[in-house]
């Protein structure tokens, strides 16, 4: 193993490898930053390019796109409050507020550093613990996933804000939105009103752009002394080391949470970012600052969603099973190169695997340099005059919604969710629980349906005899939710806490 590690290290030290990783990182970042273009699309389109490259050039190239793309998604989230993926939602909360304060550069720097820290630590952890992780992954099936998703929803509802009833109502609306379309298991149409366009459900991206970005645009028109105008020409300072150090505990905590969530198949970056953010808010002495432009909030979300990536590679590398679409594309790239991920890969081609994993870690160093140098270039966007910037943001919103599925119907959806977002803001309802309910509703329903199918209808007997783990999580959920809710209320607003308890 040690021999293979060192020969892998030697194999990885190639100029063309690092050159293509850099190309991948930069193009991934650009594509990720364009709303509507996803990392997944970029990887799928550029996959054939890797077929014609050497394995140690082609695969790192794709990995570069992947890493760059995830960070790229946080750029519009911070600058124009437009999360390109679910994973960037939690970054929007504080990132955009920082931009409004004229600190966009600081926010982007923090996103970059915490992303890279989270990613690197989880990669190294995965590299060292790959076989134990593979065993743990096998302990999680649909029943456990359903229980953990339910727990996540309860945590989000309990900690969402000052008024838990409003949060619960919004979450209920989000869950209802997730039901619209074809039932994922039985194939029955629900709430589609006979519209074919609604059969495949509500698309995520128009919803995200609609509820997060459009209300910001509207608020510029409503408010003459607007923040967007005020921010004009302020590029802001770079991140100071002392600020990074202040957030370091949070980054470490989020990295741990993200890595843990990455081990559970099917949870993913969205849950990781939300849980990292919630945990940081909960641990903070000043939770009321979260959501008003707190650097720690950006750090918490970004380190958590990147830390997911290491463990999600484990089923691919140890068993050759892709857990999601990104790993499915990587599997295709591996196979086309004559590398067969699976139990034998470490025995037959260990040096190659180590070489790829080493490039993965070293790519982070490159990314640090490339990201740091290009942030000023992105941060300039907010210095554009608002008479130019706002039409541009609207263009990105519409184009981003359309390009995701190339469906004109999605622009109607964008308008609908834009109005929804504006109304929710006017009534002082937070849209976050709605979006989380929508995102987590579908996998929760699916996992619950799978559990019912496995249990053959007899859920209680199934839980007692086969799935004590699921049972334990379900029992712990209300206790956990109640404890968090109490704590949140104490620190946020002591007076209302008494009212509800």
């Amino acid at each position: 193993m040690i021999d293979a590690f060192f020969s892998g290290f030697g194999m990885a030290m190639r100029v063309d490898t690092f050159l293509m990783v850099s190309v991948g990182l930069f193009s991934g970042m650009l594509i990720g930053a364009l709303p509507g273009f996803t990392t997944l699309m970029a990887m799928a389109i550029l996959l054939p390019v890797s077929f014609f490259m050497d394995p140690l050039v082609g695969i790192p190239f794709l990995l570069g796109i992947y890493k760059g793309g995830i960070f790229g998604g946080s750029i519009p989230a911070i600058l124009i409050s437009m999360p390109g993926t679910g994973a960037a939602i939690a970054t929007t909360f504080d990132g955009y507020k920082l931009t409004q304060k004229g600190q966009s550069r600081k926010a982007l720097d923090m996103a970059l550093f915490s992303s890279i820290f989270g990613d690197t630590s989880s990669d190294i952890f995965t590299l060292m613990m790959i076989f134990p992780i593979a065993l743990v992954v096998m302990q999680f099936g649909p029943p456990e996933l359903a229980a953990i998703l339910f727990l996540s929803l309860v945590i989000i509802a309990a900690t969402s804000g000052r008024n838990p009833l409003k949060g619960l109502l919004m979450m209920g609306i989000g869950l209802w939105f997730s039901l619209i379309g074809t039932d994922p298991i039985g194939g029955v149409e629900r709430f589609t009103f006979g519209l074919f366009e609604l059969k495949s459900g509500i698309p995520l991206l128009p919803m995200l752009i609609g509820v997060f970005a459009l209300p910001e645009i509207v608020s510029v028109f409503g408010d003459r002394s607007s923040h967007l105008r005020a921010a004009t020409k302020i590029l802001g300072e770079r991140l100071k080391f002392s600020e990074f150090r202040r957030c370091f505990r949070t980054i470490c905590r989020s990295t741990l949470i993200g890595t843990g969530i990455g081990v559970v198949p099917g949870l993913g970056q969205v849950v990781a970012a939300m849980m990292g953010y919630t945990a940081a808010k909960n641990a903070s002495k000043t939770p009321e600052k979260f959501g008003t432009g707190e650097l720690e909030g950006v750090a918490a979300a970004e380190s958590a969603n990147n830390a997911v990536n290491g463990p999600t590679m484990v089923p691919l590398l140890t068993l050759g099973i892709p857990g999601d679409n990104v790993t499915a594309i990587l599997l295709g790239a591996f196979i086309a190169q004559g590398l067969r991920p699976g139990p034998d890969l470490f025995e037959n081609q260990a040096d190659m695997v180590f070489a790829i994993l080493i490039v993965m870690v070293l790519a982070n160093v490159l990314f640090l340099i490339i990201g740091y140098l290009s942030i000023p270039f992105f941060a300039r966007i907010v210095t554009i005059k608002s008479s130019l910037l706002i039409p541009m943001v609207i263009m990105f919103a519409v184009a981003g919604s359309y390009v995701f599925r190339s469906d004109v119907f999605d622009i109607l959806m964008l308008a609908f969710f834009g109005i929804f977002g504006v109304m929710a803001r006017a009534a002082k309802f937070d849209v976050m629980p709605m979006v989380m309910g929508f995102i987590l509703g579908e996998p929760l329903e699916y996992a619950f349906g799978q559990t019912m199918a496995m249990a053959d209808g007899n859920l209680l007997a199934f839980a007692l005899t086969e799935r004590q783990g699921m049972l334990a999580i379900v029992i712990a959920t209300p206790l956990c939710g109640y404890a968090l809710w109490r704590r949140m209320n104490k620190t946020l607003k002591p007076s209302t806490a008494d009212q509800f308890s």
Partner: protein
Amino acid sequence: MIKSGIVKSVLLSAALSLGLAGAMAGAVQAADYPEKPITLVIPLGAGGSHDLNARVFTSVIPQYINQAMIVQLSPGASGQKGTNEVATADADGYKLLFTHNYIDQLQQHVENLPYDPLADFVTVARINFAPIAIVVKGDSPYKSAEELFAAAKENPGKVRMAHSGNWGALFVPAAQLMQANEIDLNLVPYKGGGPAMQALLSGDADMTMGFPSTLSALLDSGEVRVLATAGDKRIYPDVPSFSELGVGGDVGFMHRVVLAPKGIPQDRLDVLRAAFLKLNEDKTYQRLMSRLGENIDYMSGDDYEKLRADQAEAYKSLVAKITGG
């Protein structure tokens, strides 16, 4: 200065997105058809076997049609979204569908579709097909398919079969086996073949199905065992075929086919069919497909049309049987 920097950055990003779309664009030549890139709609998600297969042949076929073929993924509503998109497109040969037999012919018996597969589409070519294999875990008590079927007969609904979604590529063969052997399996859905395989390995499921191209690594290490494979011929020397088990016919094959909207001018259809025929002989294509572990079993559009009509009938009775209708 600053402003021009912004304009540059916007232009750069626009150029990049255009570059992506045109990345596979070949040289434009003055032929009548095709005179612009052809869009290939896949009604399935990224990273699946259709996506991978399409990435291979769309990167080779431009030299035979002198135009790019651009992959557009339109997943949703069990494949109906992308299919409908092509069904309603102009029949000018610039929008094609890359699908498989279950989406193509089975959906119509399960749901009300806004299109009629046989009346709205015509086959350009079958790219290849994948025979399904019945898979159990390496330490499973079931040593043969007969033992497995016997266990399912004895305990109806107790043997858990992990599949990749209702009426999908693993569900339909399982349903066909249930119909042929008069057994009752507990069909548990997963989000794709990968998660279904993971369920088998973690012990959540007793059996699943898989395509040989995705199984090799797990087979060699003994993590899984194959009990039977689809078709008349054996794929593995010591594993019986479906025919030997008394399940004959077009059962357990996923045909990957390129369809065009019906009404496409005959000369354009001929151009496309000829291109796919030539593609079949292409060395790069063959090399890339064999690396993916896929076969290159081309079938001409005319031949496949006959198969489609048979599938429509077979799936109709299958759905009636399974849903008890």
